[in-house]
């Protein structure tokens, strides 16, 4: 969706045009759900958070505080805050278990399926081993296809800070993915 499309949709959304609102829902539900899932790792929670984003959007439209441009960044910013609030509510509990996907791909052998599951688990583990802000940048930039500017808008940081955070996150991921440092004799 181009910015012009987005602005046009938003104008109609402000007038509570059902078709425009349905388009907005259909366009952004999937990306917002995936964004939430990467954080919470739980289908139902991710879906609930996504639904809440749209509720907030509707409330904002009714109160006149909805955005008039940059809808995508606005929706993701709301999602980001909802996710942070959700994690705070659960901060003093253990993390909820990640959803275990059923081993349904019959084209793969059991070994391959298990291997895939382990790879995915390792990938999630690596992502969540990053510092929160670094993880956020990675999820927005590479898993939610946000531009640097959009990411900066969501996180309310400068583009430079996002770049630096991205650089740091990628370096850390690379370090974790590559073999350990070589061992030489002690001094």
């Amino acid at each position: 969706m181009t910015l012009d499309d987005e602005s046009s949709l938003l104008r109609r959304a402000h007038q509570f045009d059902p078709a425009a609102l349905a388009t907005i829902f259909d366009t952004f539900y999937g990306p917002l759900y995936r964004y939430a899932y990467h954080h919470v790792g739980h289908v139902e929670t991710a879906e609930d958070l996504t639904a809440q984003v749209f509720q907030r959007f509707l409330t904002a439209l009714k109160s006149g505080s909805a955005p008039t441009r940059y809808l995508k960044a606005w929706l993701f910013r709301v999602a980001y805050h909802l996710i942070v609030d959700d994690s705070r509510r659960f901060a003093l509990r253990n993390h909820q278990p990640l959803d275990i996907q059923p081993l349904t791909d019959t084209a793969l052998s059991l070994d391959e399926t298990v291997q895939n599951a382990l790879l995915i688990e390792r990938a999630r583990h690596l992502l969540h081993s990053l510092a929160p802000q670094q993880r956020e940048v990675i999820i927005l930039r590479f898993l939610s296809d946000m531009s640097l500017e959009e990411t900066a808008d969501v996180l309310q940081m400068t583009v430079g800070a996002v770049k630096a955070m991205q650089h740091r996150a990628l370096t850390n991921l690379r370090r974790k993915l590559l073999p350990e440092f070589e061992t030489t004799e002690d001094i």
Partner: protein
Amino acid sequence: MNENHAFEPVEGLMAQLNAAVPEPQREAEHRATFLANVPSVRVTHTRKARPFGLLTAAAAGCALILFGLLTITRYVPSSSLPSAQEATHPLAGIVPITVENAAQIELLTTLGRGAVRAAEYSPDGLTLTVATTTGIYLHNVANLSAEPELLQGSASTVSTIAYSADGELLAGAYSNVIRLWDAQTYESSGQIETDAFEISKLSFSADGQRLIGVGCAEKQGSSLALPCDQLQARVWDTNTENEIRVISLGEGYQSTAISPDGSLLATTDRANFTIALYSLETGEIVKQFTDRDDIYGMNFSPNGDQLAHTTFSQITVWDVDDLLNTNAQELDNVPPTLQRSNFLSGATHGVVISRDGGRLAAANYSGKVKVWGVAADDPLLSIDIGVSQVAVMDFTPDESGLLTITYRGLIQQWDTATGAEISRSEAYGQPANLVQIANNRSFLTEYGLYDGALHLWDLNAEPISRQILDNAKIDLDLRAVRTVGITPDNAHLIYITEFKVGDNRRLPDIWVHYLETGEDRTMGQWRSGSRHLDPRQIFEPENVLMLLDMTWSEGAFVVRKPLLDRQIRTKLVFGKPNSQYISSIAYAFSPDAHLLAGNVCTKEDNSIYANCPDGEVRVWNTQTGRLLTILDLETAEDALDLNTELAFNPDSDILVVNTCTEGNRANALAIASYIPCPKGKVQFYDLSTLETQSNQASGPLVLQPLPTKLEFTDYRINLAISPLSTPDNLLIALAQTRENTTQLWKVDLQAGTTDLMNTIADTGENVTFSPDGTLLATSGEGTIKLWGIR
């Protein structure tokens, strides 16, 4: 550090993550709900009008009547919580602190009511008044556990307080002024300017016409532990607020006591064991005796007839008239009213006598209190406070109870007949030694050095609330939390307590606190070779705990990785420069846990307190134990390398070294006690190519600092680097104990420039950023201040 990396492996990782997202199950349901809630008619946005009129006028009238009642009614602090008000959470709407906006940083909230300095019952016995590092608080004695009220106009550090005997005035001593309040209404009643005079004792004369203050007029630093260079007693006229008399009492550590009628001042000189009685009317010494031991605590009885003092192993009570009338020169030759040896195990530092003169209570440094009848041989009561040393002690006004307030800020009233606790309040804190904020910014931890307790602040609660984690399983004489860490998943706190076994040996214990259940479990004792353990910890991203220990017996740093099942998974020994001595001041893990930087003393020194004749900063790989580099500190020949602070940037590729560049070696111990050094500097070392260069070199590299540096005319005691610092632009917070400030600096390593972004006053012992970079926490004097940008 500007090296471009290839990220192909990361792309594969992203593909795996995207493929792993299951399809949503309830999209259609949510879509239907969303569209069903869309209004069919366009909503008009109107602003609600504020109600104003008769109702508001009536409320204002009621307020005036209430105000009038308050001003004519004797004041008693409220016994219930103040009425709830709509309040915005202090951390709501904050944004990350960056070099671009750091100049706009503001105080968001202050956590805690400060460290207790003194407490007094009001003469009518209705109010317990507590002086702390943040102000004067009024407790309703009838409901001690209720929230205390801050006395209006008292909010800053108070060193001590005093009520006049007639109950008309309350005085509070501040750094440059003594403030006076009407003790009936608690309204301001004037003030006495004192210049720089650190008052430790304050008392009114019997008629309330004179105010006497004993304190320090000259000292080489702000620490309370430092000796005074010029101890004085000053007397003021409370009507004219003029200074009437100044009595010079010498220097050093002294115990002092003022008689309740304000006529006598008793002092002891620890250097030559003398005890002197001064007339506060004339300023002359009226009697002077020599004693045989160091006096820890001294007090007059409330009726002024008796003087009690404690030495390490003995407590003695004299009749004041006997002291004044004897011709003896030595205390041994004055028959005491009461003398008890081994009153309490260890040094007894506080003693009080009941108002009727019949009972005496004393406290030792281990939190134990005993109550005696002055005429009796056996103790009437033993109380084990247990959690901390007693800072304030007094008999309750009705004589039925004993008040104790610990340095940790726990107030307790005890029944002196049964020893049962009557009431308590956990209203205060003690100076926070370390502050850490969880990765998700949901809570903050701090610990007090001598109370064996962790304080856990719930930053999401409204208002932000404190939980004290006091591990009751530890039942030994002395304990202290030495370090605390939060696991990256925010699920556990790891902390290490140090405690005494027997007379000397101290063994640390490693504890895990489960935040979900509140359970504490020990991981077992850490049998290192170190007597004085000050471990540092860090978690690898996989929640693996790394602990750094300095084993003086081995003369080395040791890194251990303990697991919850009590096994030591890894032990790596680093740097054995001389097998004699290593610095205990500076060491740091890099945020990625791959590097360890430590300050190592390279020449033998027999005294751990003297200094380091020649020290250097070394950096090791924590996975292999390999020494990678030795930093060139560029310090002057006589520099105090011992007194160095180390910190890594968030990328783990810049090491920041804060050193004192000039100093007096003989003063090393004093400097460790926070006397600022005359000149200091912060230098930056680029570690981005360290591994590569080190692999190519035959030995450890000698690394030169980058040209950019921060130079100071006094020593910065604590340093934190914002996690949002970019590889070239660092945002650094430097806490300065002497000036009690924290400065925010932008350091541009590419341009070679440093810019002062902001100076925050009234804070400055420990400083840290939250992992998300939105909060700056500073701590000191029993409070934590949270700073940020809205």
